């Protein structure tokens, strides 16, 4: 069969986008459309005493202004979608507009609707809100204390949830010959897609149908949740995700703003558009991470790790967002031992409400944090016993023959061969040579270092049964329908919702290879609840492994039916039909054949179908995998530190990832590159900083350091392919590998460079000043 899967095809979606023919939310113009803006709280914590909208209403063009009180009883709170069990989870209701108290800078206070964007903003600035400020709870550790201000009066100690998994017997720790304790802070970061959030609502009073275009990674989840919030049936609510400029997890969440737009469109019977501003995005869109992670690692002098104890104190912000509670519990806590055969492990997680913007899933969601702590801890342990970081990894990692491998927390890793990418990456970087050079350079006072991250992550969400068990309010199977038109072209409807990943290309490749038809004959439809029957969207590196698999299965079903029709026409039995490269032929008599196009026509015309076969050529699949997938790999960073200024130069970055079957190496590399930029960004540059009063001090790109392309060397990437047995295409997931693996690789490299100073840890991001201070302090000693 012609190879389509595995080839470096250029992205099918690019010509449209780069010639300006995409249609993003802001491109949508509807007749009679109004504009919306949300007035947001400037205070982290305050009581709303009075809202005066009189002056604002006088602005020409203003149509309506709603406050939280106006909406009471008309629109419900926006719930979380992840009720993690057995953790005493306390959900505080998040009303789309604050009613009498604001709980973070950015909390919605009033919704302004006007003709035109200018009027809306002019009016917004004229709304007069009288606040009585309260002291805010800001950092998670302080907010847990007894005397901390309460974000929600009835939630004691601001404790949103308290989750535990695994136990480490005391005697195991006592018997250990060596141990290391370290506290890490995986700081809050802003996902920062190039396109901010947006929503456009249109209500048809005749049919009662509400259409909502919004920047969602999962339109069907938006429909399900918003149908409840807005009290409208799912049959009457249509959610469409238009072309999107990225999401990175920040657009999984169902937000108050989207509910408000839907509400206003229905209330006013006119289309309403809301486009989030960038500075608004920095206050009102979910952030990622913000976890204080305390680790204790125990083991023997020969390098074997015997136990790992982890506590995660997670700042969830003022409300529980859509996936928020799952990040630091399930996603993090079950993966804390990484690739290692550590017999005992425990994780205790405290979810803490604070007067800050909510946090939610961000590229990797929990796995970058778990990888960070284990990959850092194992390095610290190696230093403690004087062992090479590669050796300690080899001693402890699960071996090929251990698969399917059950980790200390009970997760069963589908497949793995950790030595393969490790060997390859070591070759690529030429480890021995580097160590020799490092010795020389150190003599000359140069600080160079190498850092490793041998990671594994939990991806491909996933088995729905498990979703139910872990309290996730959704199934996580995936759906595809392959519809063959009378003249042989194909439309494929998929429940995943790409926003930059290139599914039209990769899923197209799967179909093209299966059906033996050219890519140009295949159209992919995503992201519209009216045309795609059901689906769970795109996040958690699930799209190819779960969605791509359902595409493959549906295509196989099409072939099965087509074979029956071909057999009937060629007057042989189905068993005698072979299908290759788009041709159905008879075994042994290859000249007897039908093309895919001919069968497409026969099936749709239905002039002469075999008995019991219905007309049309179309098949669906609802694929629910039996397990998650666990991509893995080795990343190696090489850095040089300028000891006079603390500046870090990233000299080389080698990433060898095993993501199972690679459908398209070009787009897979693109995913790795993007992930690396974000993971390295976390280590070196990015970080949301709040003041004591809960003001975001990094609320624009003047202060929040999003990495730019020129900050990076040329990434050296490669793949090994260990297929996953849990889905028919053998794919794992590639979208989050870069963010998951790279943060500790960078940190470990910098710490290696700083070894002559005895520096063990520096809090991220590694700003030049922090590094310079660490060096100066150790020199002063």
């Amino acid at each position, binding site marked *: 069969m012609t190879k389509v899967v595995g080839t470096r095809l250029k992205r099918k979606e690019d010509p449209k986008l780069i010639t300006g023919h995409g249609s993003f939310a802001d491109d949508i113009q509807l007749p009679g459309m109004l504009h919306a803006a949300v007035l947001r709280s400037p205070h982290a914590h305050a009581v709303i005493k009075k809202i005066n909208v009189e002056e604002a209403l006088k602005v020409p063009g203003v149509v309506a202004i709603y406050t939280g009180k106006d909406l009471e009883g008309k629109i419900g709170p926006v719930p979380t979608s992840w009720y993690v069990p057995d953790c005493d989870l306390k959900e505080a209701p998040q009303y789309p507009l604050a009613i009498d108290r604001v709980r973070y800078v950015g909390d919605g206070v009033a919704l302004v609707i006007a003709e035109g*964007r200018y009027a809306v903003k*002019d009016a917004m600035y004229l709304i007069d809100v009288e606040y009585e400020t309260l002291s805010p709870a800001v950092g998670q550790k302080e907010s847990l204390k007894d005397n901390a201000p309460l974000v929600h009066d009835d939630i004691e100690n601001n404790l949103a949830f308290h989750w535990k998994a695994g136990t480490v017997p005391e005697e195991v720790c006592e018997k250990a010959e060596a141990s290391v304790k370290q506290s890490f802070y995986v700081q809050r970061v802003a996902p920062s897609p190039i396109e901010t959030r947006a929503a456009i609502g249109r209500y048809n009073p005749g049919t009662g149908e509400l259409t909502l275009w919004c920047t969602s990674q999962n339109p069907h989840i938006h429909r399900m949740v918003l149908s409840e919030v807005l009290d409208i049936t799912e049959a009457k609510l249509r959610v469409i995700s238009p072309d999107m400029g990225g999401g990175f997890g920040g657009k999984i969440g169902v937000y108050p703003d989207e509910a408000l737009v839907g509400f206003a469109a229905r209330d006013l019977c006119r289309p309403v558009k809301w486009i989030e501003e960038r500075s608004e995005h920095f206050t009102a869109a979910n952030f990622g991470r913000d976890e204080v992670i305390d680790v204790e690692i125990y083991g023997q002098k020969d390098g074997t790790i015997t136990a790992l104890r982890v506590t995660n104190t997670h700042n969830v912000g003022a409300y529980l967002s859509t996936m928020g509670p799952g990040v630091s519990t399930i996603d993090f806590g079950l993966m804390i031992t990484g690739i290692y055969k550590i017999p005992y492990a425990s994780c205790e997680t405290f979810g803490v409400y604070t007067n800050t913007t909510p946090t939610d899933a961000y590229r990797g969601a929990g796995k970058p944090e778990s990888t960070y702590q284990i990959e850092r801890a194992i390095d610290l342990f190696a230093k403690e016993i004087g062992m090479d970081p590669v050796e300690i990894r080899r001693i402890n990692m699960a071996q090929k023959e251990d698969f399917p491998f059950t980790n200390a927390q009970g997760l069963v890793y589908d497949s793995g061969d950790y030595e393969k990418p490790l060997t390859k990456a070591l070759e690529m970087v030429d480890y021995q040579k580097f160590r020799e050079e490092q010795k020389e350079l150190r003599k000359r006072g140069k600080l160079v270092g190498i850092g490793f991250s041998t990671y594994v992550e939990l991806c491909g969400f996933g088995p729905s049964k498990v979703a139910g068990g872990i309290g996730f309010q959704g199934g996580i199977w995936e759906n595809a329908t392959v519809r063959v038109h009378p003249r042989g072209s194909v439309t494929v409807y998929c429940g995943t919702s790409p926003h930059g990943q290139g599914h039209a290309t990769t899923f197209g490749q799967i179909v093209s290879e299966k059906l033996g038809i050219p890519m140009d004959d295949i159209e992919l439809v995503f992201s519209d609840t009216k045309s795609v029957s059901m689906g769970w969207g795109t996040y958690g590196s699930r799209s190819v492994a779960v969605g791509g698999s359902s595409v493959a299965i549906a295509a196989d079903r099409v072939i099965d039916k087509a074979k029956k029709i071909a057999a009937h026409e060629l007057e042989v039995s189905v068993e005698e039909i072979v299908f290759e490269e788009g041709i159905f032929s008879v075994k042994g008599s290859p000249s007897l054949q039908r093309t895919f196009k001919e069968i497409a026509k026969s099936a749709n015309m239905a002039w002469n179908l075999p008995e019991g076969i219905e007309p049309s050529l179309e098949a669906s699949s609802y694929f629910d995998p039996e397990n998650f997938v666990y991509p893995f790999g080795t990343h190696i960073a090489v850095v040089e530190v300028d000891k006079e200024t603390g500046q870090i130069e990233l000299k080389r970055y080698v990433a060898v990832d095993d993501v199972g079957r690679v459908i398209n190496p070009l787009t897979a590399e693109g995913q790795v590159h993007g992930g690396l930029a974000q993971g390295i960004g976390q280590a070196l540059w990015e970080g949301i900083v709040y003041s004591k009063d809960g003001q975001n001090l990094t609320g624009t790109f003047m*202060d929040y*350091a*999003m990495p730019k392309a020129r900050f990076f060397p040329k990434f050296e990437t490669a793949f090994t392919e260990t297929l996953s047995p849990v889905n028919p295409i053998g794919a794992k997931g590639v979208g989050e590998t870069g963010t998951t693996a790279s943060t500790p690789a960078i940190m470990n490299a910098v710490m290696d460079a700083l070894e002559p100073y005895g520096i063990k840890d520096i809090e991220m991001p590694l*700003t030049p000043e922090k590094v*310079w201070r660490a060096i100066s302090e150790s020199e002063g000693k």
Partner: protein
Amino acid sequence: MIPSKFDYVRVNSIDEAIQQLQQLNGEGKLIAGGHSLVPLLKFRLTEPGALIDISRIAELKEVRKEGNRIVVGALNTHFQVANNQIVKEHIPVLAETVRQIGDIQVRNRGTIGGNIAHADPAADLPAAAHVLDAKIMIQGEDGAETMDMESFVIGPLITMLPENSVLTAISFTIPPSHTKSAYLKFSHPASGYPVIGVAVVAGVDENNMIDYAKVAITGVGDVAYRATAVEEKLLGQELSETVIKEASQYAAEDGEIANDLFSSEEYRRNLCKVYTERALKAVLF
């Protein structure tokens, strides 16, 4: 990000600009490239009644040599300055500095007059202006006048530009031909503005004695400054690494070094020394 309402007028000469400023009586604001003003408008940090667009005034676009000085019209964009033959030949440190401003879009729109008039404490250009003894040329209601950098920029975003006047050009001294120059910048990873920027013009005589040294530092405090203490330590000394190192210890002496989220005063003082030393070495060795 939407500014509040304003009117817009385009003017074609300096005189017309002054007339408009007078008529608008404090409500008018000049706009050149808009790359500092528009962000302020959008944040509603400034809400002028009218913008007076000076960007098409031909007389503000010249670059000419006048004796020992190069006069660069206020409306020249950073890109134009960086690529101007006269500038590159006689005052290369200016070209080297503006080449490091922002990104290509910023350099294509931002003007050097706007950059100086805006007096952003983190701007790059003032460092070069200081080492080239820049004179700010102004045309106002009462005719033309000239100010030096020290008296023109008095604080962050505060200048002595008189009411109803236009910054017409900046005039730079051509340094002696035996000197060399450099601009060394540490870009803030977010904004791209300098965390520190050090401009140096320096040279040695035939006996390897330092006979010319101008050092200026920007980005570390409220205003850019000439590091005269460093210059004094260098002048008359025989060139050596030690002399440079020792002189660089005084790099923060003449400035008021500030704190911000990205770097403390202490760290910036360190940067002053390190960057001055490196810039001097780049020029003198």
